[in-house]
């Protein structure tokens, strides 16, 4: 499929829109359909599309396996960090209203929930991409 012009061009056109839509799903998740997990899966599907259309080697050049490990640890760190910050400031785990930010309480809740969703999205994106890499490598060896 290396020489297929139609598929390569369509993928190059579609991938930015998929990524933009994934970011929309992550950010808008609190007030409508979606959330961190769904947005992360859609974002990972953009990388999978690159891997299918241009070959796994090209996808690895854009996000390597080391980067997927780093990204998944980063997202988990954001999630757990915000939760433990809430414990440090005297609330429960992920008890957002105890965070000392200069806003009224509902806005603090919204901001912290969005930050947690972003962490979940990064983790899910990295893990889905790494699962795709592992499965593709196994098919190649067999």
């Amino acid at each position, binding site marked *: *499929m290396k020489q297929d012009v139609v*598929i390569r061009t369509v993928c190059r056109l*579609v991938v930015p*829109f*998929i990524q933009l*839509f994934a970011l929309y*799903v992550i950010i808008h998740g609190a007030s*409508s*359909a*979606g959330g961190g997990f*769904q947005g992360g899966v*859609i974002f990972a*599907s953009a990388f*999978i*599309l690159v*891997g*299918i*259309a241009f*070959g*796994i080697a090209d996808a690895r050049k854009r996000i390597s396996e080391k980067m997927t490990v780093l990204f998944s640890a980063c997202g988990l760190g954001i999630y757990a960090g915000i939760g433990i910050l809430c414990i440090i400031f005297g609330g429960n785990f992920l008890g957002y209203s105890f965070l000392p930010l200069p806003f009224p309480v509902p806005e603090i809740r919204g901001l912290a929930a969005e930050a947690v969703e972003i962490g979940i999205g990064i983790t899910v994106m990295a893990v889905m991409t790494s699962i795709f890499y592992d499965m*593709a*490598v196994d*098919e*190649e060896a067999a």
Partner: protein
Amino acid sequence: MIDLFTATGLVLICTLFLCLYRVIVGPGACNRLIAANTIGTKIILLLVLVGYIYGRNLFLDIALAYAMINFLATLAIAKYLEKGCIC
């Protein structure tokens, strides 16, 4: 009384079962692949219709996500049929 959009949805569901028949008994993998792709397109239309009938914008987001993932799935299956792997 059935209005225009409900009738369109019902006709779409009927034609969807025709495609499902082709997926189940269709000779060869290519017929099945194209029939499954058509089912995906019909599902997108059905989602938009349901969103219009019930007046909820939320279904448009789901239809967009479904369209993108449907394209990816068709491409993956086609590549698997051609090369035997998705690498």
